[in-house]
């Protein structure tokens, strides 16, 4: 602890700057929330700052009365429901063998490179799209979960975590007659719960936030996940092929509150999960960035 001094001008300045920057990070979101709960007249007139004016749920009622909203919400939840367990399962199955030494697993480095290369090089957008089209995956939930089924970055994090587990534990299990599958399931997975929780969160946020694959691979808007749906409603209507004048007009007549409520609903799960996210992600990010 630093000794208490007299008035420390620089410390006060520092705290002030940091608080201002923090406000810069959250105020835009608060503004959008305020707009979403305001009447459309006050929102269009630009009266709303950080607190709702003429508080109303009208925009939420309207959004939630749309079947498209619920359809896309269901797609998003299905995507997380299938995608996250699949990501975790494959991450564990790949990370465990790769965490072994080369003499314990033949071709270990060949395998490791095979996975690593996918992080370095890809075919690009068109070959990727064409491939998925030829597999007949367009307009199917599988197009949203299978291409990213093996998150190589997570594999790297987990295999490094597995390496920290004392060898004796594994040897003891093998001596007691457990096979590798048993060892993974009964020893590695329970020990790695914090790491797995982190990876599960990574995966959930990734699936929730993805929008481009939905837009590209789902021909029928009924199959859009929520973020893709919001993208078409909030962004495309605003920007596509609009001259400056048309944009100014639209801003005046369009329902800002409606868009704001959709933006808020699209980020709500993240905001609700944020306290957990923050705790786990900090660990995960640090692990992933500055290991060694």
């Amino acid at each position, binding site marked *: 602890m630093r000794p208490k001094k007299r008035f420390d001008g620089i410390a006060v300045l520092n705290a002030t700057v940091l608080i201002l920057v923090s406000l810069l990070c959250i105020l835009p979101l608060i503004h959008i929330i305020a707009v979403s709960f305001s009447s459309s007249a006050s929102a269009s007139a630009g009266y709303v700052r950080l607190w709702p004016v003429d508080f109303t749920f009208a925009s939420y009622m309207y959004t939630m009365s749309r079947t498209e909203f619920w359809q896309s919400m269901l797609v998003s939840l299905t995507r997380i429901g299938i995608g996250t367990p699949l990501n975790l399962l494959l991450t564990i199955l790949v990370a465990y063998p*790769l965490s072994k030494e080369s003499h314990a697993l033949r071709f270990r480095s060949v395998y490791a490179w095979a996975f690593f290369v996918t992080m370095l090089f890809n075919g690009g957008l068109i070959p990727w799209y064409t*491939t998925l089209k030829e*597999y007949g995956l367009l307009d199917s939930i599988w197009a949203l979960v299978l291409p990213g089924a093996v998150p190589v970055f997570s594999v790297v994090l987990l295999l490094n975590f597995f390496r920290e587990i004392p060898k004796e534990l594994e040897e003891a299990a093998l001596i007691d007659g457990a096979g590798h599958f048993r060892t993974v399931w009964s020893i590695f997975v329970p020990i790695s719960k914090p790491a797995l929780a982190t990876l599960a969160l990574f995966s959930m946020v990734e699936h929730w936030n*993805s929008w481009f694959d939905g837009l590209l691979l789902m021909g029928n808007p009924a199959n859009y996940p929520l973020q893709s749906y919001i993208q078409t409603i909030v962004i495309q209507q605003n920007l596509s092929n609009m001259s400056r004048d048309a944009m100014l007009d639209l801003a005046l007549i369009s329902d800002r509150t409606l868009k704001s409520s959709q933006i808020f609903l699209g980020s709500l799960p993240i905001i609700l999960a944020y306290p957990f996210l923050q705790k786990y992600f900090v660990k995960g990010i640090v692990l992933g960035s500055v290991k060694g």
Partner: protein
Amino acid sequence: MRAKLRKELPLHLMLLPGLVMIILFSYVPMAGVMIAFQKFIPAKGLFGDQKWVGLDNFEYVMNLPSFTQVLWNTLFISSLKLILGLIIPLVFSILLNELASNVIKRSVQTAIYLPYFLSWVVLGGILIDILSPSGGIVNEFLGWFGVSKIFFLGDNDWFPFTLIASDVWKNFGYGTIVYLAAITGIDPGLYEAATIDGANRWHKTWHITIPGIRMVIVLLSVLSLGQLLNAGFDQVFNLYSPQVYESGDILDTFVYRIGLLDAQYGVATAVGFFKSIISLTLISSSYFLAYRFAKYRIF
């Protein structure tokens, strides 16, 4: 020998599903880069009897006047993002570390990470609203200081800087965590000794904090080099419009438009292939340098 193989077999089996997945969804699309050398007709299929055209697609693209512009935009936007994305988090982590109050420290951290977790769709929607020249709160705020309205997302002079600033805004919390974690790892004894020797805040920052996290700075700089051609598809796609193509169109959005909107599959793949090759070189060199200078190894 056979016994050893039997012992290993489960490990190979475990790898199988993952391997099948990356073969199907990473390696087969990689083989698809051959589209770059074809006059590709989708109806004939990826491995169908396509017409080979050699380097025609590449030649065609290189001669497009917009290609040079797009390449320049990509490099300009991404290098500014990379540089600011390294420096600003560094400054903030040092400022945060200097904070005496833990309550403020934790609140500031919580606030600055938040945008990182939101998708560019959500943030795009927010930015379109608050930056709008008609009724956007940012312009209204600037108006109080007598600044006339700025069309941040529709003006070619402003658009690239809007992209850069909003990208830094979204991501600097992430970088700050990394630096802060590194700063926490510095031996507190060094600061105590320096204090006894009469060092002030600046001395300690210059002579202890920055050297103490030098490795992390080197590592992050080197690794970010590999991202030079990624100017941020998600962000640009959600913020740009035809009137700012001139200053904001990047390689990835260019590929999307000529490929999927104009259905010029071969040409778009050629651009993608060009980008992948350069990126591969950059990423490989950055991993090599990271190992060389910071002993960083991914496995």
